[in-house]
């Protein structure tokens, strides 16, 4: 009976404790999740939510303060600021999610290969060190300058500097996992290389990959805003938070809202993704929680 009880308490502590801890820490990530969900809804249903056409210029309504008709006022061309911000969420979220997915699709296989084949490792990691040494914003600027501006080139330009982070992560996971008995066992029963990588090594990378993916998403949104702000991003016929801010700069002293409102949405978006990433990290890998992220 006593043994039975002990088993029960062990089962209890094993399954319930993380759940309890999870609940106590839930407030911040849930708030962040709701905030992000609201931004996603805003992006998806932009045509229904925006009170005006984000591109319609009303010369008579230039630089108007907030009013019932224009809840956040208008910009220098008489376009509704709120509508431009609502549509701007689309660019940021597409670029953020796209960059995270593409960098995983390229970085994960490269990292698995580097971790598994020693010959590849040296060359591949030197290349990654080199790419990491190039400042990401400048690299993205160069790529956009060379291949012209479109949502695809911007996304790719932002993704390339992020890939080395993923390769390094996947490689380090494989390096520690390949010495495990189950991998040795798989090799000794003659499993094929692709099968070992896919079935045995890849699942190990999932948890840290999700965490890094969220950080990459946040960092890509930030880089896109910086590119647009500097004039290397999408043209203003596609409103994005970055280029709305860039256009507002000249009129900053007349109407600071032209910078603060898009800036607020941009910051909230990056903040919620970062907080979700932190929560995922603490939940999925307590060891990672101790280390600082980079």
């Amino acid at each position, binding site marked *: 009976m006593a043994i039975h009880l002990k088993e029960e308490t062990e089962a209890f502590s094993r399954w319930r404790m993380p759940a309890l801890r999870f609940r106590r820490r839930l407030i911040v990530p849930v708030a962040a999740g709701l905030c992000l969900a609201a931004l996603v809804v805003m992006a998806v249903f932009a045509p229904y939510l925006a009170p005006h056409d984000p591109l319609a210029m009303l010369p008579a309504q230039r630089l108007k303060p907030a009013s019932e008709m224009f809840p956040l006022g208008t910009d220098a061309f008489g376009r509704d600021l709120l509508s431009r911000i609502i549509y701007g969420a689309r660019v940021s979220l597409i670029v953020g999610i796209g960059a995270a997915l593409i960098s995983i699709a390229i970085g994960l296989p490269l990292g698995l290969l580097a971790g598994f084949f020693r010959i590849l490792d040296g060359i591949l990691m*030197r*290349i990654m*060190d*080199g*790419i*990491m*040494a*190039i*400042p*990401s*914003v*400048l*690299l993205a*600027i*160069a*790529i956009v*300058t*060379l*291949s*012209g501006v479109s949502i695809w080139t911007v996304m790719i330009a932002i993704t390339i500097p992020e890939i080395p982070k993923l390769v390094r992560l996947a490689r380090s996971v494989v390096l520690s996992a390949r010495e495990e008995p189950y991998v040795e066992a798989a090799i000794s029963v003659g499993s094929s290389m692709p099968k070992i990588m896919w079935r045995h090594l890849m699942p190990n990378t999932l948890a840290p990959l999700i965490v890094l993916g969220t950080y990459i998403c*946040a960092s890509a949104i*930030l880089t896109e*805003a*910086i590119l647009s*702000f*500097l*004039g*290397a991003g999408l043209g203003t016929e596609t409103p994005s938070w970055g280029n709305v*801010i860039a256009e507002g*700069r000249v009129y*900053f*002293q007349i109407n*600071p809202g032209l*910078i*603060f409102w898009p*800036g*607020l949405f*941009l*910051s909230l978006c*990056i*903040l919620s993704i*970062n*907080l979700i990433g*932190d929560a995922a990290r603490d939940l999925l890998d307590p060891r990672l929680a*101790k*280390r*600082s992220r*980079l």
Partner: protein
Amino acid sequence: MLSYILRRILAAIPVMGVVALFVFLLLRITPGDPAAIIAGDMATPEQLERIRASLGLNQPITVQFFTWIGQLLSGDLGTSLISQTPVTTLIGQRLEPTLSLALVAITLSILIAVPAGVMAAWRHGGFIDNLVMSGSVLGFSIPVFVIGYMLIQLFAIDLGLFPVQGFRSIFSGIGPFAERIVLPAFTLSTIYIALIARMTRASMLDVLGEDYIRTARAKGLTERLVLFRHALRNAAVPILTVIGTGFAFMISGVVVTESVFNLPGLGRLTVDAILARDYPVIQGLILLTSFIYVAVNLLIDLSYAFLDPRIRY
């Protein structure tokens, strides 16, 4: 010791080589015709040909590569397509504001972040700790330019404490220099402060649990001596590492901050080059900043040897 230094220097060379190769290939393997994109829609065939020639694109690729590397090694970063001035000259003209901004920002970051991180670790879980941790999440999440405009609005426009924008050389007097550099330097340092404070805290937390800290306390040393002489010195290596890797944020931050505060530095040069699609200038800036990044990290690697005798193997 000497062999450690030599090995680190040798290890930095291939990294620069990969950077150079990558930048070289970027122009050559970009799909489409980069010359046509740089020239714009209105370009005549002669203009296109001129751009191709000045980028060196009309020779066999191996010849291109060796001429290019040769030029790089002799310190030639190419010539601007617009002003026909050597890129090195353009960079030289714009170096001072950027250097002033970066140096003030780095000093400011370390002076704020390290004590903040130490205090947070010292009173782990307390008020200061929570403040530092939530502050660093915010620092990571609010874009540099948003912070910049918030500071301008608050301190320059509402309170009138500083000029809104502009730059004065330090040689024209410390007062005018300082009042124009404070806001941009603080703007630039926010993300760096967040990064360093976080790492200082984590590294100090590891060290504070060690036996020698208990010994130091037991022999009656003041907390300040324990924290800053015994603990911080041992926690220094990861902090220095993050100062080095975080230098990348500094470089992109400089471009944005200069743009917000209208400083005539390398950031302005970058923005002008973007608008004019002046690729050689962008390429030169990439090579220069990557070189600085590698050099800074090399210096930091070398400083480990002085800080931690165990590394001098």
